[in-house]
């Protein structure tokens, strides 16, 4: 029998029991719907976590000074004078092969002022690579480039919080702000990044070229980088731990540490934190997907149940079909296709339902609504699989009926 004829028969048989078919389909609709929603929501949540961490920097390693120690009293992180400008240069010159971008980040909290308003904020002196590490673009104006950083003009790029606080939302480009009594020209406004994973306002910043920072704000102590860090962005996620080892080796060599000495610096690994967060999000997503799968299985059992009832009800019909020449495989195909149609039509409706649910959840939790074609393909395949798996047993029962018994069957 042609597949078209078989399909026609299946649709007709299901249409005859509309209510029953729709109710059976509901199980599949909810099953597929929840699976789809969970996959989509999982991707959204994962993306949201990834976005937070990528706003802090991609594959980022932060090198800081270690703790100072004098007479048993330890000064805390970053108090030791260990990192040197030579270390920075070595990193910038590519002595760590896995490093893609390297930027010094010197930060101090100061009072800044403009147009009669003042504000206490953190001012960062750095190089343009910093913007690359943090995936940061200018919303208005421009960022300063390598040449500017080298020449050290008194320019500043500010975050949106500063615009709100000092300029009350008016265009700050070309305006002057006073940082520690020194006038700087605002050349750019950074795109908003919102809160960091630690809850800090990432837009409450003023960023100036390193050279200007060192000459006007903090000249440091000789060859040492004080009150500063070095940001290193490694090439790929896989390079993170290798990069960490390479940096440590380089710094230990530069600082002439013996094998038994402790590190006089610290390397913080934000990427690892991000990966952990991602992993825990994945775990929750997997758990939800398993629960959703269960409801899909329940839906599939519903299909099997109704197909079994249908086979019994239609025993006589099966007998008639066999008497006129239907082979066992024909009967089997007919019932499997009916189960398949139930499951796939349910799957398509479930896809719509799941997409709606995912969209609602994305809106509610503020994720991006993602719905890749692969998800639809998976739903389709899963629905089809459910139809075949749960339709198989009833179909086999139908095909194994004895035509003589079936013809005698009284409904």
């Amino acid at each position, binding site marked *: *029998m*042609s597949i*078209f*004829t078989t399909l026609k028969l299946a649709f007709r048989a299901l249409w*005859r029991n509309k209510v029953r078919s729709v109710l059976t389909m509901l199980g599949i609709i909810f099953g597929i719907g929840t699976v789809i929603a969970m996959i989509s929501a999982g991707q959204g949540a994962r993306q949201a976590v990834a976005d937070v961490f990528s706003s802090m920097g991609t594959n980022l390693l932060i090198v800081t000074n270690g703790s100072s120690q004098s007479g048993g009293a330890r000064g805390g992180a970053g108090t030791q004078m260990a990192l040197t400008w030579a270390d920075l240069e070595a990193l910038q010159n590519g002595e760590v092969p896995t490093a893609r971008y390297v930027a010094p980040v010197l930060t101090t909290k100061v009072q800044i002022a403009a147009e009669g308003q003042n504000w206490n904020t953190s001012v960062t002196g750095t190089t343009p690579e910093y913007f690359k590490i943090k995936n940061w673009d200018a919303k208005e104006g421009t960022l300063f480039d390598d040449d500017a950083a080298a020449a050290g003009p008194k320019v500043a790029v500010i975050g949106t919080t500063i615009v709100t606080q000092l300029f009350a939302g008016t265009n700050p480009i070309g305006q002057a702000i006073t940082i520690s009594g020194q006038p700087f020209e605002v050349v750019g406004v950074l795109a908003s990044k919102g809160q960091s994973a630690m809850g800090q306002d990432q837009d409450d910043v003023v960023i100036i070229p390193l050279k200007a920072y060192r000459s006007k704000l903090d000249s440091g102590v000789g060859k040492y980088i004080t009150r500063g860090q070095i940001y290193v962005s490694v090439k790929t996620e896989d390079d993170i731990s290798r990069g960490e080892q390479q940096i440590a080796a380089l710094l230990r060599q530069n600082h002439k540490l013996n094998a038994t000495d402790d590190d006089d610096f610290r390397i913080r690994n934000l990427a690892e934190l991000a990966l952990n967060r991602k992993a825990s999000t994945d775990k929750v997503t997997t758990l939800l997907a398993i629960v959703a799968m269960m409801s899909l299985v329940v839906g599939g059992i519903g299909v099997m149940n109704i197909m079994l009832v249908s086979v019994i009800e*239609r025993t*006589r*019909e099966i*007998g*008639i*079909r*066999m*008497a*006129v*020449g*239907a*082979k*066992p*495989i*024909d009967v089997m195909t007919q019932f499997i296709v009916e189960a398949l149609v139930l499951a796939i039509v349910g799957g398509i409706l479930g896809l719509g339902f799941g997409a709606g649910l995912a969209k609602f959840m994305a809106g509610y939790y503020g994720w991006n609504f993602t719905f890749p074609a692969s998800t639809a393909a998976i739903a389709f395949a899963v629905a089809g699989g459910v139809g075949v798996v749960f339709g198989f047993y009833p179909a086999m029962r139908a095909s194994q009926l004895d*035509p*003589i018994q079936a*013809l005698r069957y009284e*409904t």
Partner: protein
Amino acid sequence: MLVDMRGIERTYIMGDNEVRALRGVDLQIEKGASLAIMGTSGSGKSTMMNIMGCLDQPTKGQYFLNGKDVSRLSRAQLADVRGRMIGFVFQSFNLLSRTTALENVEMPLMYQGVPGRQRHKRAMEALERVGLHNREHHHPNQLSGGQQQRVAIARALVCNAPIIMADEPTGNLDTKTSHEVMAILQGLGDQGITVILVTHESDIAAHARRVITLRDGLIVDDKTQEPVRAGDGGAATGARPQEGSAA
């Protein structure tokens, strides 16, 4: 020889009992023959029909249908033989309910992979042969008993099977309608189709040229007679609508 049965035995196991429904039957039927199988209930005539119609297989013995041994075929092979060689007409019509007359007649062709348009054409022709070409879109419950049985005959005809097996074809019909149905079956016999009637009524068996009688699983009588003619087998429609569509 169209049907050649040799030493056919059929034993059913029912619980601890063995029921020997057929106990060694030899029967030859020529192509185009008109045959009635008679017997009381329990005589083995239903078993005989089931085996002859390839719905069942003998426990012992050989059955050659059109020269081919069909006594040891698989279920699928048997189904194929049924579809090509045998058209069934049942006492309770056994039409699919909520399915039009035309679709009922088309159904056997589906299983032979006949394409849709040709199916339609052949089914219409078959309905025409039983005088129902203007009822093709009626459902069984919109047809009288006689009309339903004629749809069933059209379904049996549609594959051009050489044998039509009619199991008590008039059992659910009144006298007048019975007459019409018998006339159609006789008409088919005249066209060269081998019509095998299975019945316990002698006045139905009287329509066949050859009558065999079964008792306790054996053929006890095999006689040839001049058949009673049921009429011209015209296209008269059943007068009285009847309930009783099957399936």
